[in-house]
Every structure is written in structure tokens, then in C-alpha cells.
């Protein structure tokens, strides 16, 4: 037989709680204890409110640009719930719900989009990374973090998030190749939300699924309903076990949808159908979680009212904290360019003039040299 099939594969799609609230007990029972489902629903609701408030802050001129997360909360939240607190959570900008669950204080994200570098500072014990603005760069960092964990003999894994558009960057392909070839404990999660700004996913990827991109690199791949918290928890758990115990990467395509504009600088009505948006509004991860809670008698209208009230309180306290932080000073930029500030930067810091302006730096050098770094 001159021609034979040397490789065949298929891609599975995992769904547990569908948009109508129908729950697959065989796959889903016992996956998340009821009291945790309640907590996750509450968290997701707070995040949704946060997103709406952030949008309004931008519109009223209190924030620069903001990328709404609305509709995509389940993907990162399911992952954060399924991971350990000391696993690396290496994200882009549509993972607020997961980041906050993983331990990033909520004001950090606001601070970042208000235009303050300090929003990127990561508190002690929180395993996430500064926001990657150049698309796709964080995936290789995740591979490196996982590699270092393995090198150090730690049991920690890295879970990285990126969009469908990001899979067109070379960085994605190189990260996937490294992770598979070096046996790295990485979980790749592509949030396929159908769009990269105004460009539909088919321009990024001609294959029927994004998931199958992982096959070429020799790693297990799965497609999951990204708006289904239960399915997300399941696939991430499976992938985390594979990463932790077998040091093998996994590629997950989480199918979701960006209900808002790309960012507040965009108007998505210009390029996508209202019908499409309406269809996806029905698939909102929050709605189906509420149906689940109702079905199990875990929720009441009264509880919902209380939740909405507390969401308002939580978020307005967060906004207050973010807005009350004093403006950064020039020290903030000069002190963190090198591990130790060199003499020429000391001069620039104290004069805000480049050395090339020609004033004599020597008297300034002494006054500044004595003072310890401020932060």
C-alpha cells in the first residue's frame, strides 16, 4: 500500500452547563461544590459591575482607555478557580475576573488603565505578570516561567491567556513549540472571542478550530465552551494535572464572545451584526450560572438584591482607592530603569533635564547620591 494514513486526530468540544441552564450531571456533578458555585457567581457579578463602572469612568474622562471584559468572565475565572494560588497566571487584558480571584487587588487594573505604571506592580504572593501590550509576548514568558519552575524543582505550573488574534504572532508558535519540546508545565488558553478588533477569526486562522493549532506542536488540544464555568474548570483541571504530574503542556480553545467593544476607543457596531451580538447575549456566562443556582434552589431574588447592592459598594470602594492614590512622581520613572540608579540618571532625576543639556552634573551628583531610593 503506497499511501497510508500516518496520523489522524479529532478535536473534542466540552460543554457542561449550556446556555439554557441544562447541566450535564455525568460530567459536571461534584466538579464544584455548591457553596463554591455561589461564591463564583457572586465574584462574576462583582466583576461584571466593575466592568460597567470602568466603562463609565472612561466615558466621563476619569480613565484613558479600557478594554471591556463583559461576557468573557467565565474563561479566566474557571481557570483561576481550578489552579493553585502559587501557579503563574500569565494574562492579557480580558482576564480581570480570573486575576482578581487569583489575588490581584481590583484597584490595580483600574490604576493601570488610568495611566499609572503602579497598576502593574504585583503584590507579594500574587503570581501574575505585568500587562503585555504588544500582542502575544506573554506566552513565551509563560513558557519561561514554567521552565524556571521545573528547573527549580517546584511543582508550580503556568497558565497563559491570549486572544484568537494573538495566535497569528510568531510568539505563539514559538511558545507552543518550546513548551511541547521541552516538556514544560504550561496551559495555553486561547480566548477565541470571534474578533480581533474588527478582524474576524477566519482571517487569523483558516483551520476549522483554533484548538487544532496545538496538534502541530504535539500537545493535547481541546475546545471548550468558554462561557461555561463548569466546562472551564474541568478542562483546566485536566490540563493542570497533565502539567503538574507529567510536565506536559495543553492547548485549550475557549470559545467565547466579546460582548462589548474592543476597547473604549472602538465602536464595534461598525463591523459586526446586531444579530450576532444578540445571539451571544443569550449565551452570557452569568445568565446560565444564575439558572443553575435557581434550579438547585441555591439562590433567591433577595440574595440577588443584596449581591447587587454589595457589588456597588465593593466597586465604588475600589474606584475610590484607585483615584485616591497620589500621582506618581518623577522618582517613579527614574528609580526603576536599572536595579541601581546610575549617576547620569540621578542627575536627570533631580533636574529633569538630559545630561546633554550641558549643565555641570557634579554638584547635583553629591546631593542625590546620599539619599536612599524612595520606593
Amino acid at each position, binding site marked *: 500500500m503506497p499511501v497510508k494514513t500516518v496520523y489522524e486526530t479529532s478535536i473534542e468540544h466540552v460543554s457542561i452547563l449550556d446556555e439554557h441552564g441544562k447541566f450535564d450531571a455525568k460530567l459536571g456533578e461534584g466538579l464544584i461544590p455548591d457553596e463554591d458555585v455561589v461564591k463564583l457567581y457572586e465574584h462574576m457579578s462583582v466583576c461584571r459591575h466593575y466592568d460597567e463602572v470602568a466603562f463609565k469612568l472612561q466615558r466621563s474622562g476619569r480613565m484613558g482607555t479600557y478594554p471591556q471584559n463583559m461576557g468573557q468572565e467565565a474563561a479566566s475565572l474557571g481557570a483561576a478557580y481550578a489552579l493553585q494560588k502559587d501557579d503563574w497566571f500569565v494574562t492579557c487584558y480580558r482576564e480581570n475576573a480570573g486575576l482578581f480571584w487569583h489575588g490581584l487587588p481590583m484597584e490595580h487594573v483600574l490604576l493601570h488603565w488610568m495611566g499609572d505604571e503602579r497598576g502593574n506592580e504585583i503584590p507579594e504572593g500574587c503570581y501574575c505578570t505585568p500587562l503585555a*501590550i504588544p500582542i502575544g509576548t506573554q506566552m513565551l514568558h509563560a513558557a519561561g516561567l514554567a521552565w524556571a519552575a521545573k528547573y527549580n524543582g517546584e511543582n508550580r505550573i503556568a497558565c497563559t491567556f491570549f486572544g484568537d488574534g494573538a495566535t497569528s504572532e*510568531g510568539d505563539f508558535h514559538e511558545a507552543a513549540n518550546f513548551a511541547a519540546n521541552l516538556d514544560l508545565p504550561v496551559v495555553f488558553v486561547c480566548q477565541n472571542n470571534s474578533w480581533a*478588533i*474588527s478582524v474576524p477569526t477566519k482571517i487569523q486562522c483558516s483551520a476549522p478550530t483554533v484548538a487544532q493549532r496545538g496538534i502541530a506542536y504535539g500537545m493535547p488540544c481541546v475546545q471548550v465552551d468558554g462561557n461555561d464555568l463548569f466546562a472551564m474548570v474541568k478542562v483546566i483541571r485536566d490540563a493542570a494535572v497533565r502539567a503538574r504530574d507529567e510536565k506536559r503542556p495543553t492547548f485549550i480553545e475557549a470559545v467565547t464572545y466579546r460582548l462589548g467593544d474592543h476597547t473604549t476607543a472602538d465602536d464595534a457596531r461598525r463591523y459586526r451584526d446586531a444579530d450576532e451580538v444578540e445571539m451571544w447575549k443569550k449565551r452570557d456566562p452569568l445568565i446560565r450560572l444564575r439558572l443553575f443556582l435557581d434550579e438547585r434552589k441555591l439562590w433567591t431574588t433577595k440574595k440577588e438584591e443584596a449581591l447587587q447592592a454589595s457589588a456597588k459598594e465593593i466597586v465604588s470602594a475600589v474606584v475610590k482607592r484607585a483615584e485616591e492614590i497620589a500621582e*506618581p512622581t518623577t522618582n*517613579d520613572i527614574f528609580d526603576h530603569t536599572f536595579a541601581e540608579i546610575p549617576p547620569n540618571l540621578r542627575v*536627570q532625576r533631580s533636574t529633569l*533635564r*538630559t545630561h546633554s*543639556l550641558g549643565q555641570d552634573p557634579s554638584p547635583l551628583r553629591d546631593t542625590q547620591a546620599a539619599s536612599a531610593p524612595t520606593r
Partner: protein
Amino acid sequence: MTRTIEFRDALREAMSEEMRRDQRVFLMGEEVAEYNGAYKVSRGMLDEFGPRRVIDTPISESGFAGLGIGAAMMGLRPIIEFMSWSFSLVAADPILNNAPKMLYMSGGQVGCPIVYRGNDGAGGQLGSTHSWCVEALYSNVPGVKIAIPHTPYDAKGLLKTAIRDEDPVFFLESERLLSVTGEVPEEEYTVPFGQAKIVRPGKDCTVVSFGRPVYFCLDAAEELAKEGIDCEVIDGRTIRPLDIDTIVASVKNTNYCVVVDQSWSFASPGSEIAAQVHQHCFDDLDNYVGRVHSDDVPAPYAQNLEQEMLPNARKITEAVRAVTYNA
């Protein structure tokens, strides 16, 4: 006849006119077609030229930067748009290591007539990774031409020259200037490379700049005029080729020079011009050549700090005062 149009429209007119003139010219980049460009520079071009010549790409800078090189080697005339020059850094190998060396490596056989263009410089609170001024980094490379206009007139004229040029051209626009308006003739014209322009004549101090900071120089010149210091402001218009003759002629007249360059000072157009002026005007200078650059730190995110870090009218005024104190 002239009309007043926006900088972005001047860019679009240059591309559209050249595409009508020359079937080999095409435009490729992220969001350039259906969305009319992330900054609306290519508005209407898909409608006029169709998807064969106005092409939306995946988010693959290295991909389309390199693909453009192949197309240019086949004799086509690609215009490759980077949404921001900051994102060209992921395409460093094609744009720095391939395009500028193709002619050299083929012994003069295969050139690379390609235009890379997009926003350069701080767009306003976009953070350190999205606020690159690439002119210092890229002007170090032989084989590259770099144009950096500050008015709609120059934007159109220089871009047309760039598209017709036989060599790779990096065309640096500023997001902060796209809505600036200016007079542009209806008739066909081009602006040649390597010809600086005296945008404000003066007799006391030569102030040389490129791109957006030219406006800050003009502001500073107004301020200094009140103190009796009459600045001659020169817009270099292209960094490579550099019109050193116009600068030297001016400095021989004023005896003082300040260079304003928004990139970092170390190994930059500013340091190069200062060195050349020192060489050519050693006997004419009454002081060292002053320089104003961005401070030696990544671009800050916060508004108050970003403005302090970049060249601004205050820094330029101080620099001119500092070098002319002995006048």
C-alpha cells in the same frame, strides 16, 4: 490651488494617488481595509482599490513585514502599515536585517523598494511598550531611509517620494499629529528626500528637529523671541538622508546650535547631528551644541510624567538659553 486638510488625509492622498499611478503599489497591514485603518488613514481605500490591493492581515508583524520584502523583490511596491512602530519591534529581522541588505547581498541585483509606515512616538499615555520613538534605533542601520514629517504638506510630498523610492523607506508618522490640518496643493507635487526646511528664520541660534517636536521648537522660539533670542528652526524632514548642509549653513550664521530629537540621547540622530556640526562648524561655534532628548527612561504611563520625559518647549527654551548665555 490649495486646500486645508488633515495630516491623515494627506497620507491617504499620497497613497491613493500613487496607487492610481502605479499598479504595482499596494497597501497591507492590520485593520487597513475593512476598518479603514486603526487611525482612519486609509479611509475609503478598500472601496476604491478593492481587496487585491488593500489587504487586511492577521496580527503578524513579522509575517507581513517579511512578505512585503518578497513582493518588493518581485518588483511590486508594497506599503506596509504598522499600527504603531512600537509593534515593528516584533518584525525586527525583516525590516532591519533583510530589507536594507537585499541589494547589498545580491551584489546590486535585487533591491527592496518597500515603504514601512505607521505611528511613531508617544501617542499619549500608551505606556512604555507602545510609545517608542524608533528613529535612534533604526537610523543606525545602513540601507534604510527615514522620513519624519511634521506638516500635512510634507507628509504627502514625502510619502509620494517614499513610494517611488528604490530603497526601503521607514516613514514615521505621529498619532498626535494625524488630526493636525494644513494647506496642501491640489496639484501633484513631491518633496524630495534629504532637503531640510527652514520653518522659522532667525539669526541667534539654530534649532534643528524632526517630526512632532518641531512644533515644540516653534513654541520655544516664540517664548525666546520675547527675551530677544531669535531662533532659526530647521525641520530636517528626513533623518536619512540627512541634509547637513542646510544645518551647517545656518549654524555658520547663528554660531549657536541646539538639536531636539525625541529619541533617547545615546547614539541618536541628535548625537549624530551634534557631532557633524562640531566637525563642520568648529570655528564658527560660540558654544557646544546643545541637545534635548527624551529622558533616559522608558516612556512613563502617567500623563504628568510623560510630558516631562519627552522634549517640550520648557526643555528647549532652557537648552537654548544655556548655550547662548555667552552671546
